[in-house]
């Protein structure tokens, strides 16, 4: 296996992992403020829980909660708070020669470590090679009066595009790099569409 190629941009980090034999290539996009955001989220969570704990009497008075349900309410609200704070999604795209494309999304809760999140909340999606028409860079209108470039996979017989790296929007230069590098893995000859 070759060394990972790491490209650092202003908002995100792109990691390119290429197989030495040329069988597969993997692109991973992670937000640069991933760890900082995680710590900030955990700090906010602790603050919120302590506020909830301290003002329990006032809240229960306001909601007219009977005394015996105080602990239940506290536990349920803290669990809900834990569910609210989420990590930024890590997107990755693997292209396996002659087999297809696999996209992976790792989300998860801020309170859990990354390894646990990776084990629990990873979403894989595999697109077989024979259904993939092509990988394209498209241009579209996005909410807030802006025009964006994005990578998309056209899939045969499905009336929707599969968008890539939408949780971490990447620059056109990097999109072009991904497009050019994946070209060799998607097409047999390495030039043009199928």
């Amino acid at each position, binding site marked *: 296996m070759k060394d990972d190629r790491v490209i650092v941009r202003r908002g995100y980090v792109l990691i390119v992992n290429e197989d030495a034999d040329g069988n597969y290539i993997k692109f991973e996009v992670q937000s640069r403020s991933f760890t900082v955001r995680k710590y900030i989220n955990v700090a906010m969570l602790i603050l919120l829980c302590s506020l909830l704990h301290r003002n329990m009497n006032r809240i229960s008075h306001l909601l007219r909660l009977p005394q015996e349900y105080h602990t239940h309410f506290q536990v349920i609200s803290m669990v809900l708070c834990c569910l609210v704070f989420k990590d930024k999604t890590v997107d990755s795209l693997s292209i396996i020669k002659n087999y297809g494309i696999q996209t992976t999304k790792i989300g998860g809760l801020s309170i859990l470590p990354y390894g646990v999140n990776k084990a629990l909340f990873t979403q894989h999606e595999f697109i077989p090679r024979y259904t993939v028409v092509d990988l394209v860079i*498209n241009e579209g209108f996005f909410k807030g009066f802006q025009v*964006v470039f994005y990578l998309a996979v*056209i899939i045969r017989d499905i009336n929707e*595009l599969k*968008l890539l790296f939408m949780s971490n929007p990447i620059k056109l230069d990097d999109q072009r790099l991904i497009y*050019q590098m994946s070209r060799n893995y998607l097409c047999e000859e390495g030039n043009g569409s199928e």
Partner: protein
Amino acid sequence: METSSKLRRSTKREYYWFSRHFIVTSLLIFILIWSFVGGYDNKILPNRNWVLILQCIVLMGMLFAYFGLIFYNDDILAPNLDDMRTITDSHACIVTTDKDDLVKNFAFKETSGVIDLPIMDVCDVLYRER
């Protein structure tokens, strides 16, 4: 030849412009008269406060229409990013390399002269390695 056709068109539109001018001017004069004459003791025209209210309604309506149209266009009419309509739709006219098809469709028929290129070829030309 060209000037005469232009002239004919302009005379045709003359009635329209005249009637529009007439209507707008008479409306303005009416509003002026109304705002001076209309009052509580006047039985012909309604209260002149209505002039102010109607003008404000029209002005605010225009403002809402302008902003509303922009947001309607952006939020509802624009298709999502993953929609197939961002790439192609049923009105697309894609060039085929099939010779018989090309002759049948384009050789003896009028076309609009606008043809769509497949997105894959566009990407290939724009973004491939040089």
